[in-house]
């Protein structure tokens, strides 16, 4: 499984109009000036796979993910769709493509869609966990995590390994 496309609407700095990027290849590089929106791409992926902790997406609360309007009209909801290549069938759905969509309104409720059809979050989490897609392992290494781990003392290092078990 790998990520083929990320589409947003009203998500963080991507604005209220639809934005979409096709990821080609297995080794993807992203660069750009400070504050341009690079880390927000990661937040969009985390959001789509069901991450619920606002801190992981660097906002005080989930409604902070909705485009704030940047001085103009704020969006009323944030929506992200990621398209996964599933030719390996790691996700147990018989389809070469799997799309995950999540939408949140300012009240805070989330709606999840799997290939366009509404699903429960728990159904989605089970499917993703079996495919080893999760946001709480170390497969996402956010900005600053490496320096944080570099300064762990020996008890904290033990704690890190305990979490893996």
């Amino acid at each position, binding site marked *: *499984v790998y990520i083929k496309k990320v589409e947003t609407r009203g998500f963080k700095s991507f604005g209220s109009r639809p934005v979409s990027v096709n990821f080609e290849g297995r*080794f993807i590089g992203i*660069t*750009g*000036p400070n504050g341009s*929106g690079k880390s927000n791409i990661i937040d969009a992926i985390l959001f789509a796979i069901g991450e619920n902790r606002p801190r992981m997406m660097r906002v005080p609360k989930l409604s902070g993910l909705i485009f704030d309007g940047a001085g103009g009209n704020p969006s009323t909801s944030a929506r992200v769709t990621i398209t996964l290549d599933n030719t390996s069938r790691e996700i147990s759905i018989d389809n070469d493509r799997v799309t995950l969509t999540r939408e949140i309104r300012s009240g805070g409720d989330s709606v999840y869609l799997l290939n366009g059809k509404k699903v429960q979050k728990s159904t989605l989490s089970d499917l993703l966990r079996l495919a*080893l897609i999760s946001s709480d392992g170390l497969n*996402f290494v956010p900005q600053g*995590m490496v320096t944080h781990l570099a300064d762990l003392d020996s008890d904290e290092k033990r704690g890190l390994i*305990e979490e893996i078990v």
Partner: protein
Amino acid sequence: KRDAFLDAFQKIDKEFRNIFAQLTTRDSGYCNHDNCPPGRILHGDAWLELDNPDEIFNAGVTLFAKFPNKVERDIIICSGGEKTVAALCLILAIQAVKPAPFYVFDEIDAHLDAVNSSKLAEILQSRTSKSQVIMISLKDTILSRVDTMYGVYHERSITKILKFRPTEKDIEYSKGISVK
């Protein structure tokens, strides 16, 4: 609980030793002391030790590292960049023990010098045979090895994304120079 911990610890330690040796591999010309391995490639060694194997959960885990041309030391007294190298190897070791279809890294090369950055790029590139790797960086060393490059910029209050082939000129284009 003890057995499960020991099992994970041993697996992580094994991967960690392997990855650290890879990341700290240098050609034998790099050696600058008397006991240089003849012709062989020089590499560092690192490992994890339980501070008290009888009381695992009341004690810590210490990371020892021997960098190329150096003696072994507790990572705590090593330099900022050396600690970053060790932390990266630990992350990569844990990922190897609990693999995932794709990995996302956000500026993990911030404190690395050119030699360490380019070794890291090699390791990440080798990972792409099994998984997808998405890497955010401000430095050319890693970005010059990717398949496809995306330049992100901010215009009229929103984020825009541009795809381009990573050639020398292009990298300069998106590295902080204002995108018109």
